[in-house]
């Protein structure tokens, strides 16, 4: 993996993870901030490398950047959420069960979710929840950051007349 991609992805992925734990703003994470992070990541790679000989800004850059941002933000997000659960008294799984029962019209909650809620109540940590947070964020952020990267590449090519 080229280190030129790693630092921008680290900055943007960390930024996405931080925003995902800020109340109110977190609601715009997948639609606004993750695509912005994808675009910014591609821009930072372009800024670093556009003077280099043989450098070509390709569409595949958006996919790679999306994947890296998804991976990094997934890891940081899982860590941040676990820390918040450990130090606070709230139980997000209990809240989710309440929302599912109240709004999503599902009455039979799977046992794995009930066990997770119990585990958090007792130990303030659940490995299954941490892993599921990682995978969910990884998949969603990868898709949206890649879309943002695609838009970013298109904008960069227009702004700097890059062919």
């Amino acid at each position, binding site marked *: 993996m080229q280190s030129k991609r790693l630092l921008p992805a680290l900055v943007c992925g960390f930024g996405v993870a931080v925003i995902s734990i800020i109340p109110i703003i977190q609601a715009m994470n997948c639609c606004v901030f993750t695509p912005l992070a994808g675009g910014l990541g591609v821009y930072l790679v372009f800024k670093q490398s556009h003077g280099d000989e043989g450098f070509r800004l390709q569409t595949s850059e958006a996919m790679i950047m999306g994947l890296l941002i998804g991976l990094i933000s997934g890891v940081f997000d899982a860590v941040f959420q676990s820390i918040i659960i450990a130090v606070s008294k709230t139980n997000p799984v209990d809240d989710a069960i309440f929302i599912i029962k109240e709004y999503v019209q599902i009455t039979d909650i799977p046992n794995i979710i009930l066990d997770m809620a119990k585990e958090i109540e007792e130990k303030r940590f659940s490995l299954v929840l941490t892993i599921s947070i990682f995978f969910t964020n990884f998949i969603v952020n990868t898709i949206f950051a890649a879309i943002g990267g695609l*838009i970013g590449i298109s*904008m960069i090519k227009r702004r700097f007349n890059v062919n």
Partner: protein
Amino acid sequence: MIEEKINFYLNLFFFLLLGLWIIFSFAPIILPYDIISLLSSKYLYGLTCHQISERCFGFDGISMLICSRCFGIYIGLIAGIVLFSFSKIRSRFDGLMFSSQLIILILFAAPFCFDIILSKSAMYNSGNAIRFVTGFFLTIPFSFFIKSSLTNLSKEIYYKTNYAK
């Protein structure tokens, strides 16, 4: 394969993918008793959407799998792609300066952001129609850049298949 043909197939693929994604979000309304497809699609769409039933459009008490805001975003994307398929509109937007394009993007995204911030901070409760409209306008100008990145991709494919060696 010539470049225009690659571009056409790429656009068609993207359009069909998006269309299928939207059509499957109607699964509970179209196939209310197909439990397996309902559960799998519920999980799939749940990755990107909260799916709170009172914030979703529905029919006869059955809600869609995506909320009105997400529905607006996807419909806006399709509308934008159709809109920018007309060369007159595309060339007009293309002819604008980059800063003007950026201002248009921000103007179209502003209602979406304000709606989320205000409703999340409990200052007002926007209805499904407002959520749909703000989502719809968010993605229209962005679809221009998605379309042009598909064009870039088709150029790259054309170059790689014809001149890479």
